[in-house]
């Protein structure tokens, strides 16, 4: 992800401002029907305590999640896990590949790219396309792996637990071992008798020309099976005799849990617990959730959630910024540092403080050892060993972190900033923008923009009533962050430059705003810190975080019928006493125990 380019400033019509950034016609009463956490009986925002009177009592379940294939991220994680085994190295369990991964990684790099097809979707799993090139890529990858496994006796033994030397008399025993070990890991469950028979028949047919050909065929077929390519759940049992409702099998629960928390296959321990029946016990299931939450893979998967949710830039080049504007700050390579600083902060709030959204949006803790980053924030850097510092009172939480305020020129885009908060943090729908043309007779252009602050310019450009239909919900949020420049530095004055890059004047910035955070409150905030407090205090933002996590962890928004209970419980986990973001993760994962599929 790169630094967004706030180029809207140069544009002449209000429609363009919205169009470049996301889209806008107006938002639906501040609520996104697809994401808004709702009370069971209505469409309003959930408020604490509502759940007590809801229909979401004990036993209500997560219902059907629409079938989708694995994302490339999940698929490649799964392949890497399948081809690795855990070894003890110096007393530490380490996962090591058993085959040369370079050619396999090479073929996997040819997978057609996943990703949202529009700017309105945050997560890669939400809108997946599949065409012939995906199917072809899956076959090519599977064939490459099949070649590796079939021609490497050492790798075969490590993956199956059975040596299969050339001298073996009963080579079909090797195929059986492959199915019961590697095959069960691929399909995330033991193979049925019918499946075993089919694969053995495939082996025998191909092995007529040699054992290796038989193994190749079986491995390639397994890795293209729908049970591997898709999040397929077809092993459940009817609930209370109702054939239209299936309770997930233990293996399916394990799989859903693993992908939700780690973005990959169940590990050996989780599969073993599914096999032993332990996962059928609620307490044991919950303990397994707790175990998974501590895994590095889970932390990485959750870090990726924050990256996608907030679109945290990972790289970018700020060297083209005006030297006067930079004021001596060395920006070479600073974007990854700011990204890391943001992730360190999130990790601290989530995992160390066990905080909630309030902490995320208000905490001034930071982890800064880099002098340039410290300079941006106006603080003294900590040491590499002890990087934690306290930011000045001019900053508060996530929305005032430099990584989320960056732009690639000297002029801020309050519209882009407002859209980010409106969409990502509050889950409001911003419909596609109309193409509105504004005639100069209707709205005179500003002759000399260097005389006005960015806020004033945008206020003017979006001042027509038909522009305000959208911008009334965007501008206020964006203007609140005008106290930070495009490097994320706090400022009380905005530097104005002429076309030659010469500073011509400084103008005081105005960060007072009525942001209309939740559609009900019309309170004014004086600056971004106060605005962040308003957002943090809104149930809407809490509901939104819960909804975003559910979408990310399940790969889609489940249908409304069961989703409301899940969202309600997630909301309570996030906001209730003892709650927090980790509790959000824990609760939504634990809900999988109750998961059912509706046919």
């Amino acid at each position, binding site marked *: 992800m*790169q630094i967004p*380019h706030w180029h809207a400033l140069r544009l002449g*019509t209000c429609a363009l401002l919205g169009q470049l950034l996301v889209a806008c016609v107006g938002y639906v009463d501040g609520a996104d029907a697809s994401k808004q956490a709702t009370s069971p009986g209505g469409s309003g925002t959930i408020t604490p305590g509502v759940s007590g009177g809801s229909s979401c009592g004990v036993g209500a379940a997560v219902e059907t999640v629409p079938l989708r294939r694995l994302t490339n991220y999940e698929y490649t994680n799964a392949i890497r896990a399948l081809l690795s085994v855990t070894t003890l190295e110096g007393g530490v369990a380490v996962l090591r590949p058993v085959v040369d991964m370079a050619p396999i990684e090479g073929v996997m790099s040819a997978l057609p790219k996943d990703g949202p097809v529009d700017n309105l979707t945050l997560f890669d799993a939400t809108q997946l396309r*599949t065409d012939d090139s995906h199917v072809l890529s899956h076959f090519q990858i599977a064939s490459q792996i099949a070649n590796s496994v079939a021609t490497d006796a050492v790798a075969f033994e490590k993956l199956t637990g059975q040596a299969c030397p050339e001298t073996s008399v009963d080579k079909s025993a090797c195929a059986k071992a492959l199915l019961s070990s590697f095959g069960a890991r691929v399909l995330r469950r033991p193979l049925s008798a019918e499946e075993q028979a089919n694969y053995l028949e495939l082996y025998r047919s191909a092995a007529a020309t040699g054992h290796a050909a038989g193994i190749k*065929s079986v491995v390639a077929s397994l890795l293209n099976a729908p049970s591997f390519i898709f999040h397929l759940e077809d092993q459940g049992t009817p609930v209370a005799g109702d054939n239209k409702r299936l309770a997930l099998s233990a293996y399916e629960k394990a799989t859903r849990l693993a992908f939700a928390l780690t973005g990959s296959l169940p590990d050996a321990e989780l599969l073993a617990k599914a096999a032993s029946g332990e996962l059928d016990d609620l307490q044991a299931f919950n303990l397994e959730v707790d175990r998974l939450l501590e895994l590095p893979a889970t932390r990485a998967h959750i870090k990726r959630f924050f990256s996608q949710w907030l679109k945290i830039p990972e790289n*970018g080049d700020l060297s083209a910024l005006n030297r006067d504007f930079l004021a001596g700050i060395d920006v070479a390579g600073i974007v990854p540092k700011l990204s890391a600083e943001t992730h360190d902060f999130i990790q601290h709030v989530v995992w160390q403080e066990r905080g909630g959204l309030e902490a995320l949006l208000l905490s001034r803790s930071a982890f800064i050892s880099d002098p340039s980053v410290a300079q941006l924030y106006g603080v003294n850097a900590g040491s590499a060993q002890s990087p934690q510092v306290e930011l000045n009172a001019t900053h508060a939480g996530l929305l005032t972190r430099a990584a989320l305020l960056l732009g*690639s020129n000297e002029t801020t885009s309050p519209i882009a900033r407002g859209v980010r908060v409106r969409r990502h943090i509050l889950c409001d729908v911003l419909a596609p923008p*109309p*193409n509105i043309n504004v005639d100069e007779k209707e709205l005179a252009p500003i002759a000399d923009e260097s005389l006005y602050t960015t806020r004033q310019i945008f206020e003017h450009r979006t001042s027509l009533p038909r522009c305000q239909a959208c911008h009334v919900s965007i501008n206020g949020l964006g203007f609140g962050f005008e106290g930070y420049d495009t490097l994320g530095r706090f400022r009380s004055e905005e530097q104005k430059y002429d076309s030659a890059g010469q500073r011509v004047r400084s103008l005081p910035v105005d960060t007072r705003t009525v942001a209309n955070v939740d559609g009900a409150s019309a309170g004014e905030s004086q600056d971004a810190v106060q605005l962040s407090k308003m957002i943090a205090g809104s149930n809407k933002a809490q509901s939104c975080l819960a909804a975003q996590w559910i979408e990310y962890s399940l790969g889609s928004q489940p249908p409304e019928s069961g989703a409301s209970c899940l969202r309600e419980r997630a909301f309570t986990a996030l906001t209730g006493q003892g709650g927090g973001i980790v509790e959000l993760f824990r609760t939504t994962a634990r809900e999988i125990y109750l998961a059912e599929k509706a046919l």
Partner: protein
Amino acid sequence: MYFSNRSRRFFLQGLAGAALALPFLPSMIRTGQAAPVTKKRFFAITHDHGVFEEAWFPPNYKVAKDYALPVNQLPLSTYPGDLSSILGAGFTPLKDKLTLLRGLDCMALGPQEGGHDQGFTLAGTSFRDQVTSPKGKSIDVLLSESAHVYPDGPPRFPHLSVCMSYVGHSFTVKDGKMVTSPAHANPRALFDLLFGGGVSDAETPEQKTERLRQGAVVHSVFSDYQRLQNSGRISAADRLVLQEHMELVRGLERRFVDDPNAVHCADLSGDAYSNYTNIIAKDYDQRYDQLFDVVILATKCGLTNVVHLGLPTSETSNTTDVEDAIYRHLDTPDLKFNTTIHSYSHAWQGARPQMLRAQQWLAGLAAKFMAKLNTVENSATGETYLDNSLVMYVNNLSQGSSHLRYDIPVVLGGNLGGRFRSGNFLDYTTAVQHTVENSGNKQVGVDYTRALVTVLQGFGLSEAEYQQPGMPQGGFGSDQRSSKTHPSLTTASRRDPLPGLLT
């Protein structure tokens, strides 16, 4: 999940008879007669972010009135040296087969509206605005559906889109929305898709065994999907998802069978194509080289007459990791690509070294494609494939930093078997007053849509065959904004072909 907008029939038609080759063995290709000469090929090469006009157009040129038409022209062959620093050495040998157009203005959108709206480039309407603008297919898609291009019925692949970018410029309309055409980016996969079904008569027993083994693997997977269709534990919605995937697997399976419709094409002989890589190589020049070869081979073998080639862009955060990598391969010790080409385009003169380098590379790719196409097709007349084709190389913007769309840079290659004049620089700027008053968003000029209309008419399509759905005035392309931003625009002029192009 949703699937690309190709129909089931499209896939089954498209994949029937193709054969996956792992490893691919060129000797497996059955050879045959070359396809008959055709003069109905169209290639659209598109890219984004604008060009430095002073470096794109020939410098210090003097145009002369000719043709007795309201257009000024300069024979390119009389221009010394390279055409410009961007249209460099690659184009120089092709001067007499090129046409440079200048002075065309996008009036489907305001001069700066819509940011990077890829819709107007080939469809003449807005892709971004799916609400008020008329929705329409791009000209390549229209041509691929036309009996004028395929008088004997559509071939296996009426339309191909090759695009390493997430957003291309080729659009069809599905469910009332403009959607980008599915695109291919992997030379190996594209080759397999097109030619995999060509099974050589000289196939060795070992090769045949391996092919059938792979076919059996695919069949076993297909059987898995079939069994699931009968499962009582799958919802109707899930069954549909699996069914669509199963059809893709079915298409793959057909690549392994002995298909009587396997490709017969003299150009497939030899092993010149044995080196296509499975992997998306970091050497993007090589990758484009291979993609171009496969595309041209497909046209030579009569598999398609219409191709969209999307050159890499970056427009949304979704695309940047791919495109960053592409442009980073242009790094030199003195010149680094540290951010997206999109960001550089907005820095414009502030990132002139990077943008100029990128524009030269992109133009070089277009020139390379045309040069590859410029091999003799008809030995009796000496006509080349390029002569019998029309290549349209066009940028989405004229200037990236402020999304300007006046003076859209267009290069045409070939003459479609004599349907188009070539070898000239046609400058419409001085024929019709060309101004853009940015302050008022007023635009006066020659509508770029007319270039699209000219192409369509050059292929023989009538207005009734290409008119834009939802346009009360008919014709092609949108004139939604004509009343305010384009006071001089008339529907009639929008619908006229450009003077000086068609013979």
